[in-house]
């Protein structure tokens, strides 16, 4: 298994598309920072003009914490989409080039090989979120400094600078679980669909549908709390005034359960299916 993991990592980081994905994430981050630099102050002043008359804000509101929060919001669509493209490509490219045949002609267990892909996909996702966190942390604070964070979630919330930084860190951690969910789902879609383009389209559709259904009331509390697509905003809970740690922990446990189930389905299908 260790050998398979090493070869999967080697292949992933020898492909140019991996670096295109990393570059894309950094470019999106850069665009957010540049637009904030040129337009952000005006927008914030416009939005908070009245509040400034009543409250005192420590430092400028267009600060590193707010910018990192904006970067954090790429977890909704940009980051999972890029991760899904790279991760699903780890398998669809093998189908397209038929290297899956060459691999399985070696004395390698089918289930172990596909499991190694899931593990590397999870590792890659963690690295990508980690990279986004670290680069945004340094760039945002480096260029915009520290300050209190203002967030609009069912109303405006303000967090002191130090507390905001901690909440953002926890959010990235929670977001990592959501990203892993999407990465694992895209790999399972790749197992089912095999084709590169079909997998990209269905993965993008899956992401959009998950985001849409997240906002829809499913009628019962149980479904609203634990349905597959209702757990992907857990990272936002860290910006509620009182952090609901119990709900967050439960959401994490259920998310991990879903991730395991989705990966197990993919491994089972791959193991049972002929490599024609």
């Amino acid at each position, binding site marked *: 298994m260790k050998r398979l993991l090493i070869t999967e990592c080697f292949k992933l980081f020898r492909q140019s598309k991996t670096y295109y994905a990393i570059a894309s994430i950094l470019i999106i981050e850069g665009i957010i920072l540049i637009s904030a630099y040129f337009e952000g102050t005006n927008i914030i002043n416009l939005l908070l003009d009245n509040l400034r008359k009543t409250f005192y804000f420590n430092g400028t509101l267009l600060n590193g914490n707010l910018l990192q929060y904006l970067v954090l919001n790429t977890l909704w669509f940009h980051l999972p989409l890029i991760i899904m493209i790279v991760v699903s490509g780890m398998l669809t490219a093998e189908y397209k080039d038929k290297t899956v045949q*060459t691999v399985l002609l070696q004395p390698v267990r089918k289930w172990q090989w596909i499991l190694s892909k899931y593990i590397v996909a999870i590792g890659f996702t963690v690295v990508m979120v980690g990279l986004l966190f670290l680069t945004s942390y340094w760039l945002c604070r480096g260029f915009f400094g520290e300050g209190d964070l203002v967030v609009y979630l069912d109303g405006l919330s303000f967090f002191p600078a130090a507390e905001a930084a901690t909440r953002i860190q926890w959010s990235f951690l929670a977001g990592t679980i959501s990203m892993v969910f999407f990465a694992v789902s895209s790999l399972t879609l790749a197992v089912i669909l095999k084709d590169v383009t079909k997998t990209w389209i269905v993965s993008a559709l899956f992401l959009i549908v998950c985001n849409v259904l997240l906002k829809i009331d499913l009628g019962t509390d149980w479904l609203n709390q634990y349905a597959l697509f209702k757990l992907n905003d857990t990272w936002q809970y860290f910006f509620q005034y009182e952090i609901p740690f119990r709900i967050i922990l439960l959401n994490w446990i259920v998310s991990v359960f879903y991730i395991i189930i989705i990966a197990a389905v993919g491994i089972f299908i791959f193991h049972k299916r002929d490599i024609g």
Partner: protein
Amino acid sequence: MIEVIGVNKNYLVDKTHPIKALENINLKIEKGEFVSIVGPSGAGKSTLFKILLGLVTPDSGEITIEATSVKRIGGIIEKPALYEYLSAIENLRIFAGMQGLPTTRIALEEHLIRVGLPIHRKDPVANFSMGMKQRLGIAIALLNNPSCLILDEPFTGLDPMGVVSLRSLIKKLTAEFQLAVFLSSHLLEDLNQLCNRLYVLHKGRLIRQGNTQAIMNACTHQYLLTANNLSQSTSLHHWQHQLKGDTAEISIQPGQVSDLLAALTNEKIEITSCIPQPDLLLLFEGESV
């Protein structure tokens, strides 16, 4: 060494119309034997190979493979599938590494030398010719010393020099490693040179099997004869023929070819080649054995 008994495989196009890819296949390949299978496109050759290599599960039947190596059979299906963005040595490193074989530079270079590939090329295999890719594919197939090699259309896409070169390599490797080889090819002349036994597959059924030369002879009633002064021959008129310059297409039974050649030699006709022209329709679609 490999024994296939009563193997069947159907593909479902839809729920009501299964397509019989293979029907009651029985075959045997002994250790060190060189066996080939021919048939028109879609006859089921690749499906049979995939079943033998464990990529596809048969619907019924039994396959017995006697081998001591962890990797019982090595093979290439259709064309060598390689990581095109990696170099030859990196491809070998991947495939050797995943099965726990040594991945030192020296060990990997040995595999390249074994199949006659240069050891200093660092560019991606996407730049390689088809012949070089076939060689690398064979090097990967031979990792972990399998006792049987399956090659599906190994000469496809190769120029004549490439065919000759690959044929020599296959011969050399089989002799060196005492390999059994099971291959398919549309180049019947090559099969005749390489293989002891031949199977003919048609619409998923084996319709002929036996000695390659005997099957080829049974399906050959025409020869293409080339000679410098062929038009001066009188003995040629004993057989039905069509003369075009120095070349004649002669309808003749294989057993009579030696008589024809002797007669032409007596007439001082300078024969330069005599090539059998198998009747492909008879070979590929003949009556069931």
